[in-house]
Every structure is written in C-alpha cells, then in structure tokens.
C-alpha cells in the first residue's frame, strides 16, 4: 500500500477536522456495538480497497467485507429467527466465500501481468473515498428523517460504499478490478436494504442475490474470453467500437 503524500494527508486532516469540529451530527448511531463494528469494518475495507494496488489484496478485502455484510441480519438486535439465520448463512456463503473464490480462480487462470496504474492515483482515490464518506454523512444529516430510524444509521456507510464501488469501477483499468468495483457497489446497495428487510420478503432478497451472483459469473466468463481474444484485460486497449 502506498504511503500517503503530504497533500493527501493535509486534505485528510482537513476533512477529519471538519467532521469532528462540526456540531455533533444527529445521525443515529446504532445501539449495538457489534453493529457499529461491522459498519466500521465495511468502511475500512472500502478505503483500503481504494488504496490497494494488487488484485489479490482487493479480493481478500472483498471477502472481509462480505463477512461483515453477511453478519448484518444477525446483528440487527432483534431476537434471532430461523429466517434471519438462513439468510445470514446464504449471504455469508455467497458474499464472503463463493464470489471471492470465483475472483481468485479467474485471477489465477489469467497470465500474470504487472499492476496497471488506475486512471486516478491511489492517493487521490483514497481521498475521494473519504470525501465520499464525508458527503454521505452530510447527506444523512440533511435528509428528511425516515420513519425507520435504523435506516438513517445505515445510510451514510451504505452510500459511502456505493460511491467507493463506483469510484473503483471508473478508476480501475483491469476488467476484473472493475467487476470488483461493481460488486462493492452492490454491497453498498445491499447494506442500504438491510434495515428495510422483513421476514416476508426473503424470496425477494434471494432472487436479487441470485441475479447478482449470475451476473458476476457471466462477467467473469466474459473476462476469461476477453483475455483470450485480446491478450489483455486492460479495458483501455479494448476499444474497437469507439465513435
């Protein structure tokens, strides 16, 4: 991981100062310390992923993020139900195990290539991610209060994760890293949906998960073919159709 340069450090300090000097935000902090820890873990993985240069690191971080997300249904504080446990097991299985393994497998089959620098330097990516989080906090403070208070507690981390995913998607040059970004974005959207979930809609969550799983699977297949057809997965070089 690159060491932050002076400009980034000073900008980060400014952002932190703004956050902590400002009047205490009315954003509700979830009562369960485990939940706070899980949300924090998601945010940390976002930032480290934005900073990471090598794909295997990013894949491992994705698995960590998957664990934090998969545990969410259990951490919500309400008494454990069988449907909650089932969901957690399925989500952990897919988000923390199956998808990272799929990424790792396709990474192993691709010929080794040196890491490609992102369109925007790693430092700036981290900075943009942090600014994204600050913006999410600001947004959460200025949104009309939703009826479900838990939603507001989830909003800032979830929205920051969506922004981080988008950032990964647009700054990375390797096709696999872009799909990883897409998955981080989906993780953010999933996080936003966690406080809204209720027992009746389990079929829906599973359908959505299936869609995403198959989607990632097809994208990874496409990457495999891209590598065979173009001898590269640098999307900069895959541009015959540009107008």
């Amino acid at each position, binding site marked *: 991981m690159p060491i932050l340069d002076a400009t980034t450090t000073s900008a980060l300090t400014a952002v932190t100062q703004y956050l902590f000097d400002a009047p205490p935000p009315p954003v509700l902090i979830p009562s369960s310390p485990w939940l706070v820890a899980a949300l924090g873990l998601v945010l940390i993985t976002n930032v480290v992923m934005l900073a990471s240069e090598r794909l295997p690191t990013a894949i491992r971080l994705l698995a960590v993020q998957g664990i934090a997300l998969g545990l969410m249904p259990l951490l919500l504080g309400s008494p454990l139900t069988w449907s909650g446990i089932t969901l957690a097991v399925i989500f952990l299985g897919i988000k923390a195990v199956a998808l990272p393994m799929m990424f790792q497998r396709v990474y192993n089959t691709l010929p080794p290539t040196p890491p490609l620098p992102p369109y925007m330097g790693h430092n700036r990516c981290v900075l943009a991610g942090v600014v994204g989080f600050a913006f999410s906090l600001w947004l959460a403070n200025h949104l009309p209060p939703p*009826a479900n208070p838990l939603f507001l507690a989830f909003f800032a981390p979830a929205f920051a994760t969506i922004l981080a995913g988008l950032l990964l998607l647009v700054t990375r040059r390797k096709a696999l890293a872009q*799909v990883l970004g*897409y998955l981080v974005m989906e993780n953010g959207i999933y996080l936003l949906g966690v406080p809204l979930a209720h027992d009746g809609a389990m079929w829906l969550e599973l359908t*959505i998960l299936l869609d995403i799983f198959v989607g990632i699977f097809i994208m990874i297949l*496409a990457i495999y*073919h891209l590598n065979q057809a173009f001898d590269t997965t640098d*999307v900069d070089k895959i541009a015959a159709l540009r107008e």
Partner: protein
Amino acid sequence: MLAALVALPFLAGGAAFFIHGHKLRRVLLVGTALAQFILVALCWLTPPPPLWGVLALDAPGLLVLSATAGLFLAASCYAVGYFHREGEHDHAAFRARLHFANVPEAIFTACLLLFLGAATLVAVSQHLGLMWAAVEATTLASAPLIYFHRHQRSLEATWKYLIICSVGIALALLGNFLLNVAWQTTAHADIPMTMPAMLASAGKVNAQWFKAALIFMFVGYGTKMGLAPMHTWLPDAHSEAPSLVSALLSGALLNCAFLGILRIHQLSVAAGFGDFSRELFVLFGLFSMVVAALFILGQTDFKRMLAYSSVEHMGILALGVGIGGMATFGSMLHLLCHSLTKAAMFLLAGNVLATYHTQVIRQVSGVLRTLPRTGPLWLAGFLALTGAPPFGLFTSEFTILRAMFGSAAWYVPVIYLVCLGLIFAGMATACLHMAFGATKEGVPPQQEGLWSVAPSAMLLAGCLMLGLYQPPWISKFLHGAAATVAGQAPSFSFWPF
C-alpha cells in the same frame, strides 16, 4: 394462466440446454414461441386471474407482452433460416479478418427462451422488486446472445452491455429501496411493493424520498431503455449482435425497461408528483432525439444506424408520456408500431449482411436487384421507421405532435420536428443508397428463403395496418393502457373484449 405464461419459456429454455438434435431443438424454439403467442392471444380474450398477489396483467403489461410474444414468434421463425445458414462450423469473419466460431446453438437457443421468460415476467409482474429481478434477468439472458459470433468486436459490445446495464440496474435497485423508505410511515411498517397496494397508499408518501427514488429508478431503467445520455451500450450491442437478437433487443427488451419507468410514473401521478416525472420524461426524451439525430447523420454502419434510430424512438416514447393527454395514447401506439417496424428492419438488415458480408453502408448498393424480396421490404421499412404517412408510426408521431401544441413549451415541438427531419434525411441517404444503385460485383442476385423474409413482411404489414385502420378493440385497448399510465383509470378495467 399467468404461471403457464412465465413457466413455459423458462422450462423450454432449460430443456434446450440438454437437447442434442438440432431439428428437435429448433422445433422446440418455434413451438414454444407459438404456444406463448397463443397463450397471450388467450389473455386478450379473458383477463387472467392474478396470481400470488405479485403477478397480474394490466393494460400496459399486456401491451408489452403482446409486442414481445409477436416479435419472438417472428424472430424464432427467422432463427430457423438463420441457423441453417450459419451452420456450426468455423467460418472466416468478414470483418477484421478474424477467425471465429459461434456460440453453440444449444446455448443460444436456451438463452433466447430464457430471455423470453424474463421479458414475460417483467410484463406480468406487479411487484416492483420482482420486476427489478426480471429486468436484470433479461440482461443476463441476452448477454450470451450478443456474443453469438465469438470475435473481438462482439465481445467488446457484450462487455460494455454487461457493465453499463448492470450498473444502471443497480441504481434502479437503490431506487427500489428508497421507494420503500418513502412509503414507510411507521418504523417497522411492512411495505408491500405491489403496484395496487402502493397506488392505494400513494397519498401518504414522503415527498423528498420519493423524488430521490424516482430519479434513481429513472436513470436505472433509462439506461436499460437506451435513453441518452445513458445509451452508450446500445449501438454497440445492437450492431454486433446477430440480427435476430438485435430485433429482440430493440423490439422487446427496450419496451420492458420502458414498462419499468411507466410503473414509477404511475406511482408518481398517484402521489401527486406527476408534473415532476413528466418533466423528466420530456427532458430525457428530447435529449435522446437530439443525440440520435446527430449520430444518424453521417452514420457509416447500417446496423448502428438502426440502433440509433431505436434511441430516437425511445426518446419519442418518453416524450409522449411526458407531454401527457393524447400524447400518452400516441406513445402506446408508438411502442407497438416501433417494435414491429424495428424488428422487421433488423431482420432485413440480417439478410443484407449475410449477402454482402459488410455492415458498411457505402459498400452496399443495389439491394433491390440483388435481393428482390428484401429490397422492397427494406424501402417500406425505411418509410415506416421515419414516420412516413401510411404507416402506424406516422399516426403515433402525429398524435404526439398534435398534443404538444397547447400543452408544451414552444421549443418542444420545434426540437421534435427538427430532429425528425434530420433523421429522415440521414436515413434516406443511407437506405436509398443501399436499395438503389448498381449491383455489387461478386454479389450475384439471389432468391431469399421464405423463412428470412416472411417474418419481416408480417411485421411490416402489422405496422401498415395500424396506420391505415385501427380496429376499435385495439384503439380501446391502447386508450386503456394510456389511461392506466396517466393514472386516470384503475389498472384492470380496460379489457379489449
């Protein structure tokens, strides 16, 4: 009934993976398409009862479903001729001089059928979450279809399609969640995300959350529908996919995404934000038309030209709903006519491509003499597509234009007419050059098979009929669909018979 409609193509698609005989699989494809068509026809006679509270057929749903089933029947007939022509052996790519193989026919057929299943599910779904999942499923089922010819260009198009549409659709999912928040009045209220329930309780929504949800859903489904500026995947995917897939993408897939936006518009009207969503429709609609006009002028590839024409027509659909009043009816008619015409044109473009081995407009001339059946249909299709008089698209475009006067700002009809004029000029240059002119050396005149022209002829005849004479039951039905979209009628009260 609804269960049969949805299950049939999925089951047939699953079976197609495992059938080895080409003949049997092709029979399965056409048979399923025909069965689906008959089932949809039965839906016109008697409204099918709702199922599990999430599946139900209303007028806009039936409209999209009918267009999909009709097109799929035409495309599957065309596919038989197409498979026959393509064979399964490797053959030299005429573009880029690459060697390429095709995706195995079993996978291709299976994905076609799964696509039909997903599109049917979109049309009959009254549950917004389920609808989202079905729209995403159409993306996944159609990605391997675009990559039928395994070469670099089609792969690049597939990649772009997957990434752009997936991100777009992810935004729509975010919109779904925000919609849920907007409807929540107490902390742990159970929000049934079904249309009737949401319409009934639309009066109590939280305005700001609703507007945020509306924008996310609009951008999300708008990406899939090909509204500019989110349209960038569309010309690539349509130009690189096999022609029958382009026909289905343009004629069926885009409508499905449009239906998604219409559902949100229905909610928006019920919640009292009709003006807000209508402004969005007008804005995106006009912008799409302008972008399409700019790219059609001077276009060098005839399949890309047809693809940009789809962007234009999606813009007109959005514009019609945005203007409101009679224009909404025009929009519904336009949806039907555009599906028929564009599918016919893509199938014909497939014939031209198979004969001339190029998509470059300049390198194609004398189609009238070289392909005596495709040529006249190509000209008729060009006239229909640009909104020339006897065809249905003229009626719908004129209806929308007439509704603009008096209910829209002055610049709306001006931009609309200028764009239509530019697009007519651009397409006329290309299509007339292709149809007339000297025959190409090395491309002898040939007699096309019935399978490759009959589907287009039927589709164009349908569009012509809608222009010359609208049977009263069709216009009653289209008015019903328009009233449902505009929130003036309960969803299920307008059945044609």
